[in-house]
């Protein structure tokens, strides 16, 4: 893989173990501005852990993460950052969770406003205006005063995406954003993600939606048992996978891919 001149995200040699189980082994990759990188792989291959190492929800055992050239989690002097410094960096990395993780005590609109107001401390009027625009963008203007408990799964996840966008992040992380949804609700979330990809949002997406990855990704990473086995354009990966592991993986998803191409 060619090194990008100014990558938004640079992951260098990240490893992580849980006890005796090595979940990630020496993972390195870069994400350029406006790229949509889909991380694929079987369950338990370390995809979610990799995503969580990027914003240090999990502390990597080894390796470094850089956001726009600035180190995340560990300073360039090798010292682990204090919570305050790490929190400042995290405000520039949006995250969308598998189970939505909306704040249940706040309304939809308040969920969008909470972090920009309390953590980023941006002007309230500006945040409010942007939040309303984001709700319109994900088609949920009329739900602004509803509590998350009153929404469908698809609506919750669209709020989750809007909440992440309200931070004006440099990078957006998606942790299996459609895995917890009923099949008929997956589409409405993927539509929003596809729009973001076209608008040039920089995104890393852990997903099992092969059709989405094939269509929307600029690049695909394939993980298996904690190792990055393969990386390439979706066209390379889906049409001419280079490794036996990737071929096996794709065969299992073949039926799904056929459905999606219709």
């Amino acid at each position, binding site marked *: 893989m060619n090194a990008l001149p100014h990558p938004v995200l640079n992951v260098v040699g990240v490893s992580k173990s849980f006890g005796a189980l090595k979940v990630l082994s020496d993972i390195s990759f870069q994400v350029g501005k406006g790229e949509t990188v889909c991380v694929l792989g079987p369950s338990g291959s370390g995809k979610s852990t990799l995503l969580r190492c990027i914003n240090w929800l999990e502390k990597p055992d080894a390796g470094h993460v850089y956001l726009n050239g600035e180190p995340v989690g560990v300073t360039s002097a090798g010292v682990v950052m204090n919570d305050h410094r790490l929190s400042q960096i995290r405000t520039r990395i949006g995250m969308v969770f598998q189970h939505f993780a909306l*704040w249940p005590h706040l309304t939809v609109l308040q969920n969008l406003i909470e972090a920009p107001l309390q953590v980023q401390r941006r002007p309230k009027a500006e945040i409010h205006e942007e939040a309303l625009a984001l709700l319109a963008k994900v088609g949920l203007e009329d739900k602004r005063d509803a509590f998350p408990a009153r929404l469908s799964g698809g609506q919750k996840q669209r709020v989750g995406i809007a*909440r992440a966008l309200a931070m004006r992040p440099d990078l957006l992380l998606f942790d299996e954003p459609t895995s917890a949804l009923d099949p008929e609700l997956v589409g409405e979330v993927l539509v929003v993600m596809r729009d973001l990809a076209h608008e040039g949002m920089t995104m890393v997406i852990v997903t099992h939606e092969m059709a989405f990855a094939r269509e929307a990704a600029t690049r695909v990473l394939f993980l298996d048992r904690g190792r990055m086995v393969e990386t390439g354009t979706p066209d390379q990966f889906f049409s001419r996978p280079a490794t036996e592991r990737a071929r096996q993986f794709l065969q299992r998803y073949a039926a799904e891919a056929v459905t999606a191409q219709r």
Partner: protein
Amino acid sequence: MIHDFGIVWNERGLLMSGLANTALLSVIAAVVSLLLGAALAPAMMSRRRAVAGAARAFVDAMRCVPFLLFAYIVYYGLPSLGINFDNWSAGLAALMLYNTAYMAEILRGAWAAMPREPIEAGTAFGFSGVRLFRRIILPGLVLSAGPVVGNQLIQIIKDSAFLTIIALPELTHAASSIQSRYYVPFAAFITAVALYWGLCLVVEGGVNVLRRLADARR
């Protein structure tokens, strides 16, 4: 009988000052035990075994002592160890310490039952430390633990009646001094019961507000 209530009415000043003292004791004990309990709950959930064990031992021990005995020990027992209190300090200390254990256990349970993901989302969105607790964790705790905490407030109000045995001039003490002076036990005690009931209604009103807020968010 009406005459008896007339006597109690004539002594309403005494009853009202008893009621005020009961309310004061209960409010202070409730606020302090809630704060101490909120500090103790994280200790009970600490990953350090010694810290968690000590906190757990305090809570378990406290919850297994009858309050009346505990008040006796604080007021009559501790002076023999050289620790002296007046009756107000002893009564308040007993109420606060005793209920700290309950509050800690209530908050620990509510915290442990909270879904992990919204808290993690807080961390991912840049909340940490006190801000994470205040903005993300605490509102959920208040909503989910509110009714149980309210129940404990009612318990505090009722427990404060035991403090009559250390001559604290609270509501029960006032009622019993009226009955012994005029021998009107029924009227005096029923009036006191009605006043306790009134206090509990105030607490329940607060709990109901919380419950409605929680239901809308569930």
